[in-house]
Structures are given as structure tokens and as C-alpha cells.
């Protein structure tokens, strides 16, 4: 019987072979590859966005860290600055910055002559190369030390923002055509003075530590004072949100009975975490400023608003840290006679501390970069020109904050302020990065796996 099949009709030849991919399989495999590439492309686009963003920040912001200075030998004639010659500070103070303008013009003319620069420009026009803060700078030096009157002193004066922009490539001769603050002729002088070493660019410490300046003097603006404002705000946030957040989490995680009240709190916390930050700003305006009459623009108010905003973040991460401590720790403490409170405060809390601190630092970093609520409580529009003169006034007197200062600069019309804004962003990001790195190190170093 078996033979019969051998000689029967040939078995039908299969239409496809497993050695050779058929059309449908090829199609499916192609779809597979395509899908994979979509995923890769999405990741790549995300990373590219990050690179472009950081590249833009660095490229636009780095120039803010250098500034153009003009070094001048300024003669300080006693005839102009101290007519009576008795070096009485009160009388010297009577000469306003206006009175110093002539001296500066003379110094500029001398500088041109010394370096062999030919120019038929008027003296007053020459002064446009300098920042309008130059006169105040010389006047302050004279007031601080009246004995320099009658001598010739060397001053490093800020160049005007146009000259600064020219050295940084932001301002060109064409762009000056319609600009009444500086002419192309000035740039020829600047070119020659730069070769002579009178005009030079150097690192700008006063951008990092200095105060904000009025709208017409971008070359003088610094972020230092608003940095202090941010610091005081973060102190408020830290001192309030850490204890309150930890206390709330301990209650919810360790003590809360399962009832309506607890549910209500939980729902509230998860919703507050997603409420838009501007709504917290409205809350701050209505409650802290209109109702309690706390001072406007004060870091204290900003700190309070940001505390309410960061609390949900801190509570959520603290609860996770408390949950990660195994119940055996609690059981052992209870077993040797500790009360529940003692078990939590003496054993669970210290073990959860690294996790809690990590969450707190991340919450603080979020608060540091937040801008929208600060707009509403008046931290915008305030020119942070003087540093607070004490700890109490640091909390209560009007100030700005870093992100608010950046927004303020971005709003001003002069393009020189964009550069400042990007520079401010670099400083802000350095702070945020440091905080996040500290958080990561804390987690790596101290977090225990049970």
C-alpha cells in the first residue's frame, strides 16, 4: 500500500517557500522597520530640540558675560569740580553728573589725539560712545576720594551698548543708518581705538553681581539683585514647605484613618498639583496682598505663593519615600515599646530623609524657575536697582526674582536686552542644574534599596 502512493500523482508544489519571503511578509517586515524608524525619529527630534534649545541659549547668552570698556585718562580739574578749593564733600556733591560731561569729552579728545585718530566729530557726539553711566562713575569716585581732584586718573568706563554690540557683532554699520544713538563714523573711531587698546572687551562681573539699570542703559544691567530676591524667596519656600510637606505626608502615610476627610485631602493634593501656576498667582494677589495687606513685590509674598505651589510636589515625593521604608522597621520599633509617633520620628523619618530631601530640592528647582505667579504679585516692572540693606528688608522690601528679571529684560525694546535675558537664562539654568545634580547625587549616595 505504501508503494501505491509513491507512484501516484505528485504532491502539489507549495505556492510559497519558507526560504523565500513572500510579498505579504515583506510588507509586514517593511512596516515593522518603518515603525521602528518612526520611534527613532521621534526620539531624535526630541534630542535635537534639546540641543537646538541649549545651543540657542549658549550662543545668545555668552556675549552677556563680556562687556566693552573704554579706558580713559581723565583729568579732574579743580576749577570745575571744586571751585572754592576747600575739598568740602558737600560742595563737591553739588556738581551734578552733568558737570562731568565736559571732563569726559576732554578725556576722549585727548585719547583720540594720543592714539593719532583723526576725527572731525563734535565733542558732545564723541561722548555717545560711552555709557551714560560714565559721568556717574567718575563722580562717585571723586566723592569717595576728594583728594584725586586736580590729578589725572585712569578710569575703565563702560562703552555704550551700541559700541558693545558692534564688538560682539550685533550692531553693524548698516543697522546704525537709522539709529540716532550712534553713527558709522563712531565705529571707525572704535576700530582704531580698539587697535590701540583703549577699547577692550573683558569679563563682566557686574552682570552677575550687579543691579538692574533703567531701560536706556542695557550695558549696565546685572542680575545680582534679583538673584538675592530669588534667594530670599527660596529661603521662605524651604522653611515653610519642607516642614509642612513632611508633616502632611507623615499624617497621610502613617496615621490617617481611611475616611472621607482623608480622601478629601488626597483629592485636593492631586488636584493642586495640576492647577495652573497663574491661578496660584491670583490666589497670592487676592489673599496675601489684598486681604492680609502684605507689601507688593516682596520676596516674602513670592515665597508664600511658591510654597503653596510646591507643597503638592513635595508631599507626593515625601510620601513615596516614606512608603519605601519597609514595615519591618516600624514593627521592630513598636516591638521594643516605642509609641507609633516615636517609631515614625525616630526610625522611619531618618531612613526616608534622603528621598525627602531629593524631592524637596527638585520642588525648589521648580519653584526657582517659575515666573507666572510672580507677574501677578508685582515682581515685574520693578527695577531691582538697589540690593536690600538687611535680612528683614530682604524679605519685605520690593525686589525682583531671576525669572521675573529675565522676563522684564525680554520685554524691553532695546535688542541689547535680549542678550542680557539669554545671559540671565544661562545663570538660572546653572542654578537649576546644580540643584538637580545635588538631588541625583543624594539619591545615588544615600538611597537604600531594601
Amino acid at each position: 500500500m505504501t508503494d501505491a502512493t509513491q507512484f501516484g500523482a505528485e504532491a502539489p508544489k507549495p505556492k510559497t517557500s519558507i526560504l523565500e519571503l513572500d510579498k505579504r511578509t515583506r510588507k509586514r517586515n517593511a512596516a515593522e522597520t518603518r515603525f521602528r524608524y518612526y520611534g527613532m525619529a521621534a526620539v531624535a527630534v526630541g534630542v535635537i530640540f534639546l540641543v537646538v534649545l541649549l545651543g540657542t541659549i549658549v550662543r545668545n547668552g555668552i556675549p552677556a558675560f563680556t562687556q566693552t570698556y573704554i579706558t580713559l585718562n581723565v583729568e579732574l580739574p579743580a576749577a570745575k569740580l571744586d571751585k572754592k578749593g576747600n575739598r568740602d564733600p558737600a560742595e563737591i556733591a553739588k556738581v551734578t553728573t552733568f558737570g562731568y560731561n565736559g571732563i569726559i569729552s576732554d578725556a576722549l579728545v585727548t585719547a583720540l589725539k594720543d592714539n593719532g585718530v583723526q576725527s572731525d566729530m563734535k565733542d558732545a557726539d564723541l561722548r555717545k560712545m560711552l555709557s551714560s553711566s560714565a559721568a556717574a562713575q567718575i563722580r562717585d569716585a571723586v566723592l569717595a576720594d576728594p583728594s584725586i581732584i586736580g590729578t589725572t586718573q585712569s578710569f575703565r568706563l563702560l562703552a555704550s551698548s551700541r559700541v558693545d554690540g558692534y564688538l560682539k557683532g550685533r550692531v553693524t554699520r548698516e543697522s546704525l543708518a537709522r539709529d540716532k544713538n550712534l553713527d558709522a563714523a563712531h565705529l571707525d573711531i572704535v576700530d582704531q581705538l580698539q587697535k590701540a587698546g583703549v577699547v577692550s572687551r573683558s569679563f563682566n562681573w557686574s552682570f552677575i553681581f550687579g543691579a538692574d539699570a533703567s531701560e536706556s542703559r542695557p550695558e549696565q544691567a546685572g542680575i545680582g539683585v534679583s538673584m538675592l530676591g530669588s534667594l530670599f524667596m527660596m529661603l521662605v519656600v524651604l522653611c515653610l514647605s519642607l516642614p509642612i510637606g513632611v508633616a502632611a505626608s507623615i499624617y497621610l502615610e502613617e496615621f490617617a484613618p481611611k475616611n472621607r476627610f482623608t480622601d478629601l485631602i488626597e483629592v485636593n493634593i492631586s488636584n493642586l498639583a495640576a492647577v495652573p501656576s497663574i491661578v496660584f498667582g491670583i490666589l497670592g494677589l487676592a489673599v496675601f496682598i489684598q486681604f492680609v495687606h502684605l507689601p507688593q513685590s516682596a520676596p516674602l509674598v513670592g515665597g508664600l505663593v511658591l510654597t503653596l505651589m510646591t507643597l503638592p510636589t513635595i508631599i507626593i515625593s515625601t510620601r513615596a519615600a516614606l512608603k519605601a521604608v519597609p514595615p519591618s522597621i516600624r514593627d521592630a520599633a513598636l516591638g521594643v515599646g516605642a509609641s507609633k509617633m516615636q517609631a515614625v520620628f525616630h526610625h522611619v523619618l531618618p531612613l526616608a530623609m534622603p528621598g525627602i530631601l531629593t524631592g524637596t530640592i527638585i520642588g525648589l528647582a521648580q519653584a526657582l524657575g517659575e515666573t507666572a505667579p510672580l507677574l501677578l504679585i508685582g515682581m515685574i516692572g520693578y527695577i531691582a536697582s538697589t540690593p536690600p540693606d538687611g535680612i528683614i528688608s530682604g524679605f519685605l522690601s520690593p525686589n525682583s526674582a531671576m525669572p521675573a528679571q529675565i522676563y522684564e529684560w525680554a520685554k524691553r525694546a532695546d535688542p541689547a536686552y535680549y542678550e542680557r535675558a539669554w545671559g540671565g537664562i544661562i545663570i538660572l539654568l546653572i542654578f537649576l542644574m546644580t540643584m538637580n545634580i545635588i538631588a541625583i547625587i543624594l539619591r545615588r549616595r544615600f538611597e537604600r534599596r531594601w
Partner: protein
Amino acid sequence: MPASWIFLIVVVLAAIGYVLARGRALASAQGDSRHLHSLPSYYGMNAALLTAIPALILLGLWLIAQPVFVEKRAEAFIPADAYESAGQLSLMMSDVHRIAAGLDAAVAQGVLTEAAVTRLSAADDVRGQLGKVGVALGSDVDAAELEAARSFRSLSHTGDLIRDGLVVLLALAGFGWALKQTNKDFRARNAVEKVIKGLLVLAASLAILTTVGIVLSLLFNTVEFFKLYPAKDFFFGLTWSPSFGGGSELGILPLLWGTLYISLIALLVAVPLGLFAAIYLSEYASPAIRGIAKPLIEVLAGIPTIVYGLFALVTIGPLLMKAFGEQGGLGWMAGGTAVMTAGLAMGIMLIPFVSSLSDDIINAVPQSLRDGSLGLGATKSETIKQVVLPAALPGIVGAVLLAASRAIGETMIVVMGAGAAAKLSLNPFDAMTTVTAKIVSQLTGDADFASPEALVAFSLGMSLFVITLALNIFALWIVRKYREQYE
């Protein structure tokens, strides 16, 4: 005495209470702590808490309540026909505050005596006299304002005095009571723990308090707004043109349209990118790539929104202008700030938000589902498309809704990138504005807070709060419902 001194006194009293109570407890057990019910420090703590907490609570409440009360009483001195609007009244009251502060300064510097202050009348040159002590007034002082300032001052002074007395008395009472309680049989640990637990509950209730605060502050001002401006025109008005001179049209619809349009564009950018990135990272990527790419994308989430705002304004806007602008481009775009500008920046911001949420959700799909599908011969992408994604769909929808709520509530990017004109237009290259941007612009001007133009910001805030809250609750509900399926 300023409140800070009272605070210090209470704290010092509490510290003394701690030491005394601890000593007293030990003494009652003849110095042998084994005879005590609790550890000695608990007796001290009990005394400290009893001294400080009631007194500090009273102090805090008083500090909040007194200015409100005094304000109301002083307001009564200003005749109702002296002002037309609540805004004018608040201006007059701030004058009153300055006068009161000036009188205080004058008395402190010896320019005026207390008796001279009571004799002072509007006919005297009050402005000049206060100017001497460094308090500059904007206008001359009228009789009603002076009277109000005087009453404000005397009420504040009496209030402060009563407050100081009551707080210290309460602290002393707690102090005495705690010392009286203290003996070796007193259950100090239980008492202290009860108080601490109370404090913990209080801290936890702050979340409720915050929500209540938000709702009340929005609600009161919204009601105030609807008294001045009809609610129907606000909700259904098609024009937004506030003018502080009066006669403004404050319809929310153009703002809502701008908000939704920008959010839509942001989601069109963020959802596909975020979702595909999450799929790739959780299903395909090797651990090494995942370890690098995932944190890199999440860095985008840590960048403050002001940076995205500036990026939109300075980089994206001009770039779009080159492509779609009137000079050299397609001519669809009139200015750098537009729906597209803000939408793109916001989309970039939301990528990590969508991707990390979706990543969690995709990882939560049980491996057995994938194994079953792969075992039947499906390719990996077929498994993802036909098994994993449908299983994760509710969660992903939740993630998208959360992202949408973020987009709707985002402020800085739209303030800087979207423009200021409220328009009902379909062109994504038009400048439009949003609810959040208008909240900022209506509340940051010099407008007085009682005008409808400023109060409208609170109703906008209320609408924003309700919309985002509804989205969040819906999203969380979907996510929770999905979770129940597999756990």
C-alpha cells in the same frame, strides 16, 4: 511692641517651661527617671507646647483679623458721598494709612506730641508737618481723612495693646497649667503625641485650605465682576476690547478660541512625538540607549517656561517669519508672534510630559499580553499597534488630557509668543491671545482693582480653574479606571 517681640517672649517662655517642667517631673520622682510615666523630656515638651501653641495661634489670628477690622471701622469715617467707586475709596484709604503712619513717625521723632495729634485739625498744615518727618503725601488732608487716620491709629494701638496682653496672658496660663499638671504619674508622652498629631492634621489640611482659598478668592471677585458686567455678555461675547475709560467689551470666546487653538497645535506636535518616543524607548531601545535618551528628553521638562517663551519670541518667531512672512515667505504671517509660534514652543515643552507619562503606562501593560501576541506570529510593531496600545489607550488618553490641561494653563510662552490681539480667526499664523495672557495683562497694569477691566481677570481665572480642574479629574478618572483592569 511689635509682634516679633511678642513672638520672642512666647518662645522664651516656652523654653523656660521646658526646663522647669522637666526638672519638676524629675523632682517628683526623686530624680529617678524610672519612676516617671514618660521620658523626662516629654514633660518639658508638654509644657513648651502648652505655652507656645495656643498663644501663637492667637497671635497669628489676631495679626490677620485686626487690620481687617480696623480698616472697616476707619472706612466708616469717610462719608459715602466722598467717593464714587470702590477704587476711589481704596485710594483714599491708602492715603489714610499714610497719614496714620506719618502721625506715628511724627510722634516717634518728637515733632508732635500725642496731645497735639488729638488737637490736630484739617486746617493745620498736616501735609507740611508730615513732610518734615519724611512722609510725603500726594494731596492736602481733608477732615474726614484726618479723622479716619486718627481713629485708625488709636484703634490699631489699642488693638496691639490688647493683643500683646492677651497673648502673653495665654502663654502664662498654659505655662502655669502645664507646671501644675507635671508630676511623675502624668502621662506626658500621650499628651505630647496628641498635640503633635493635631499639628500633623493641620499641616495636611493646608491642602484643603489652599483649594478653599483659591475658590473663594476667585469666586468673590467673579461675583463682584458680574455685578458690574452681565454674565451673559462675558460668556457669549464675541469681542474682547477692554478700555479703561469704560465701555469695554469683555467676551471670553475669542480668548478661549486662542487658548484652544494654541493648545491644539501644541498637542499636534507633542502627542505624536512623545508617544512614538515613549514606544521606542520602552519597546525597542536597548538599555544603554534608553539610559541616555530618556534623561535627555526629560531635561526638556526641567527647563523653565520663561526659556521657552524667549525661545519662541526670539528664535521660532523670526524663523517662521522667514518661511511664511510677507517678505520672501508665503505672506501668511504678519508678525513674529502668532498662534503657530507659541504652539510650537509649547509643543516642545510638552514632549517629555507626554512621553514619560505614556512610558509609565506602556510599561504597566502586562508582559503576558505581548508574549501571547508575539507567540501567534505577530511582528513587534503589530503587537504594539494591535495589543499594547489598545490596552494602554485609556491611560494614554489620560496623559493627553493632562498635557492639554497643562497647555491651557501655560502662561509665559503665550504671554511672550502669542501676541496681544484677541481675534477669532482660523489662520494659525495670526496673532491671537489666550485666557492666561489676558489675566496677566489685566492685572499687571495700573488699573484699580474694582473696575470691571481688572475684575474680569478673576472671572477668566475662574473659567481657567474650572476647565483645567474638569480635565484633570476626567483624566485621573480614566487612568484609575484603566489601572483597575490589570491589578
